[in-house]
């Protein structure tokens, strides 16, 4: 299965600022997925990123708040914009398909 490197692993940010999270995969993949995991909660899909096209966002998530880039088949970034304390969560990228999905170790974001 693919190996995912995600960074930063954690950050503490001031409200109103933005943070960009990077996800690097050791093999070429068609789809990359970004999830949010709020403290003690389950994982919620934010968007699906396909190389060469705009990301597809799930209900409740918008591009202005969570812009995503997918410049090639091994890399993607998620930006959390104009942050508020409610954005404090773990953000995870994932790749996969019919035989299973692999997750990065996540970025633990705290907004103060």
């Amino acid at each position, binding site marked *: 299965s693919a190996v995912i490197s995600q960074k930063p692993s954690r950050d503490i940010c001031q409200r109103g600022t933005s943070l960009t999270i990077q996800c690097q995969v050791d093999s070429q993949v068609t789809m990359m997925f970004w999830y949010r995991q709020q403290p003690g909660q*389950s994982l919620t*899909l934010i968007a*699906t990123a*396909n190389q060469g096209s705009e990301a*597809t966002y799930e209900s409740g998530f918008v591009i202005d708040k969570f812009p995503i880039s997918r410049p090639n088949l091994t890399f993607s970034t998620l930006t959390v914009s104009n942050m508020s304390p409610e954005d404090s969560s773990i953000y995870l990228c994932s790749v996969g398909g*019919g035989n*299973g999905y692999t997750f990065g170790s*996540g970025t*633990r974001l705290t907004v103060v």
Partner: protein
Amino acid sequence: QQQVKQSPQSLIVQKGGISIINCAYENTAFDYFPWYQQFPGKGPALLIAIRPDVSEKKEGRFTISFNKSAKQFSLHIMDSQPGDSATYFCAASMSRSGSARQLTFGSGTQLTVLP
């Protein structure tokens, strides 16, 4: 709408005991049911998965039981060990025409295995 319901929220088991976590789904279009194990500070890792054409799948100490008619599936951890202490998520996915499969997760079960 929560499409995959998971219980219990937390579970404490003695070492050597059996841990059982249950999930129920609503959408009959789901055709892939994985379980993920997550340790603190780590991303979820695929533990075991099943497709609805079988009623049971076993890998080592981990077994999935699947009941298609009841739309339920469960994870059984035999001979539970302290190292199994983690959060477990069930999930479900389905193929979508023109779109990628996506996982719908249950709410998670925090398992503690006492030594």
